[in-house]
């Protein structure tokens, strides 16, 4: 499947990709980051997150890495990072959202 075929993304998928766009993260790191980015509006439950991560791993949007600096806490955890396909999907979705925002602004400005 092409990156285009996966669009539009759900809000959960978008936030997960956005969270991973900068640095690889652990599962709980993603949850906290998404909560912070959305100013507490989107709080991912662990079940929701891992179902999404499983799907993204299967579709090749993200990759799983072993933590290179494991400590007592992160021993069991893995890091997730965007794959090339995931980055492509994220960029396309961002462009799509941007064009929608532009369109909305133009239309609203016309009316005013």
């Amino acid at each position, binding site marked *: 499947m092409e990156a285009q075929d996966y669009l539009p993304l759900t809000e959960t998928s978008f936030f997960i990709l956005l969270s991973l766009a900068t640095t690889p993260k652990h*599962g*709980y790191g993603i*949850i906290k980051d998404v909560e912070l980015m959305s100013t507490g509006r989107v*709080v*991912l*439950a*662990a*079940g*929701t*997150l*891992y*179902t999404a*991560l*499983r799907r993204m791993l299967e579709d090749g949007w993200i990759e799983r890495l072993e933590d290179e600096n494991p400590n007592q*806490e992160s021993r*069991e*955890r*893995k890091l997730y990072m965007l794959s090339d396909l995931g980055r492509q999907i994220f960029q396309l979705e961002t462009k799509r959202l941007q064009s929608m925002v532009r369109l909305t602004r133009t239309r609203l400005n016309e009316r005013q």
Partner: protein
Amino acid sequence: MDNFEWHIRSLVLRFIESLLKLYPPRFRHEFYSEIQKVILCRLRDAEQTGQWPCAVVHEIAGLVPSIIQERWHDLGFRKETMMIIANEKPGWFFYLGWVALNAIAVIMAWYITWAIMPLVTERGEGTRLLDLLFPIIGLLTGILQYILLRRYLPHMGWWIAATFLGWLMPFVWFFIFSRVVIPGSSTVRIVLGMSVLGTTVALPQWWLLRKRVQHAWWWVLFFGLAWGMVGLYDLWNPPDLFPVLLGFAVVLAIATSIACWLLLDRLPNHELSSRTSSQ
């Protein structure tokens, strides 16, 4: 934290643990420890901000649809992988074991039949050797084949019943078609008749295999061919039935091991390479 609260919390944690166990095994294998750790971290953080009950409800509410979704996904996955494409391929040990165990099963069945024969004939007069031999072969080969096959074709418990039923098919055949005349010399008639019998013996196994592997009809073909080849014994006119049975055991074991190689190794590999090259 008082004692009651501690009990409630440990109860909730155990409930979450048991919910996590409802995920399908494949998902559990991949994510169980991670998801468990994430939930514990989340509840620990929520405890510090006094939002423990909300976090628990939120996590449980997230787990339930996730489990349903994963179960549903797993059903689809299992359906897809019922047709093995790139599963584990059997090694030389499997084929060696297959030939040996199948041959041994037939020989064991021979001796068991002779051991049981006096007991049965005491009760019912006129019991023929084959009336006992075939069902016993069916049962023994079914069990031994299942032991070998289950690693490569999981969920094949019905294989034993199918094999047993298959070896009863010759009786059904004789009962229904005893007057069918196959033209030609006696050897040709025997070879053709044996091939047809072999094909019917393989039918119940084929019924199971067709859902699990592609081109399952190879199984029936090889079974028919092996039985037909054994029909050539007529050319040598052996004085005793045992050498025929021995030859039959070895030929059938080799033929079915070739069929196994085709169905579990050669054809899936071919399928996979043609899929890869077409992408």
